[in-house]
């Protein structure tokens, strides 16, 4: 498990996968450039403003709606290192864990533009601007092991050998 630091992009409750990446972008020819379309209906232009390592901080039920794996993939392609939310929708959560996007379930007050550090080893989030610290619980052992193996496909590759 690792430590990441980045600038905060702030979102509210119930950010659905149609907001993250609209259905009309879900075609194979876009699979390597999904980042270009993230939040295009609700926060146009954000895709080009995100820097590698940036962190999304959101409220409840992040990633609700469709099962499209394009959603976590588009955020990873955009350079998002971690999503911190009060809670996640379950398919988005599974997709992210399985493909290697870090998620942290924690209520954080950080404002947009603040620099925060998420330390998975200690289970701490530090907001460098507000000088605030938050703690979050560790994932169950199975999920920690899945992440440390490099995600679901890496696990399966190991098992098929």
């Amino acid at each position, binding site marked *: 498990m690792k430590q990441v630091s980045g600038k905060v992009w702030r979102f509210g409750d*119930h950010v659905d996968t149609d907001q993250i990446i609209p259905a009309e972008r879900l075609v194979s020819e876009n699979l390597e450039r999904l980042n270009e379309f993230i939040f295009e209906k609700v926060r146009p232009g954000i895709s080009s403003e995100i820097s590698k390592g940036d962190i999304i901080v959101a409220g409840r039920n992040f990633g609700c709606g469709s099962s499209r794996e394009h959603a976590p993939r588009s955020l990873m392609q955009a350079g998002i290192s971690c999503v911190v939310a009060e809670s996640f929708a379950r398919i988005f959560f599974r997709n992210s864990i399985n493909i290697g996007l870090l998620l942290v379930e924690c209520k954080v007050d950080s404002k947009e533009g603040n620099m925060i550090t998420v330390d998975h080893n200690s289970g701490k989030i530090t907001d460098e601007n507000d000088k605030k610290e938050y703690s979050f619980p560790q994932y169950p052992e199975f999920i920690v092991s899945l992440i440390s193996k490099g995600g679901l496909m890496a696990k399966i590759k190991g098992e098929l050998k």
Partner: protein
Amino acid sequence: MKMGKTISEKILSIRSGTDAYAGQIIEADVDYVMVNDVTGPIAFREFNELKTEPKREKIVLIPDHYVPNKDIASAEQAKEMREFAKQHDIKNYYEVGKGGVCHQVMVEEGFAAPGRLIVGADSHTCTYGGIGAFSTGIGSTEAAAVFATGRLWFKVPETIKVELTGSFSGYAGGKDLILKIIADIGVDGAAYKAFEFSGPGVKNVSVPDRLVVANMAIEAGGKAGIFPCDDLTVEYIKDTVIGDYTAVYADENAEYSQILKYDLSELEPMVAYPHLPENGRPAKGSGVRIDQAYLGSCTNGRIEDMRIAAGIIKGKKVADGVRFLVVPASQKVYRQMLDEGLMHIFVDAGAFISGPTCGACLGGHMGILANGERAVASTNRNFIGRMGHKGSEVYLAGPAVVAASAVSGYICVPEEVRK
């Protein structure tokens, strides 16, 4: 005494060969895994990298989102699915003209059955809970994992028990029950949890209505929405179900995280206002002007929905300024509409009828909304920009409200349609 189990705990125990309770993470044998033309291509790429033989008898491939091919990009994508089926000799592939919307096909073709564990790379896979299966939506990479191993990890969910009494009255139905539940508990009210329906009212809910309710469990964040198998279930699937199945029932002393109670006779037609499915309120007296009415989708695109709508619109005309789109959920529903003379009723009323597709439900094609336009739809989501422009609006309702609104030009219940 040993703690009892919910239907979810039982199915996941049986399929994992463990003594599973809510909160545990288990790995279980899956009966079927389904992908569509949007989620399939990622799964195909991931699977092909594994360079292994697929569990081909478990795999179901159903193109429905952007078919018939909307444009060149979607044509290429649909072709990927066709070629994957051919490359790996997967028989359960449903070509355009032979299938329809994936969840309707999964039920019609007998993949869904009581006690089965079914996953699908589409969030509305929870639909088959309407006939007693534990079914849930997964991602594409997970689907690829099931293609390869036939197994997947699950967190055993806690269960919300929904006790039903009475029976539906007037035009209220399954859609109104689930919109009411979501309005009461919110779009994350059942996050990570399963619903289990019980009580004397269950026998008064038709199987198609159960499928509607289960279909939208995900709109409350639910992992599954399960009705116990009964005589209605057995009758509904007897001619089509593939192979044997074993119905699973909850123990009397099972533990539930929450209990909700609904008297079906008190429900009235509902409509969920933009932009969340939890914004449900009674449709009567709404009066919201609409540009489009949409009858279709995996939620309400069955023959029963078509009959209800046809009964309301028969002999009347779609209001000026309104497009009424009728989209049967499968080729079988389409055929049944022909047999029952429903096509004539809709065409004479001035409705546009298309073949089966997810189409405009997810803003794909065949009825996209422009800026400022409003639609009343028998679909399942009304998120920002769901059916088109970010400045458009979607109002969710059952088939009766959709048909009545198409005639009136504004959202209303059938009793409010002017004679």
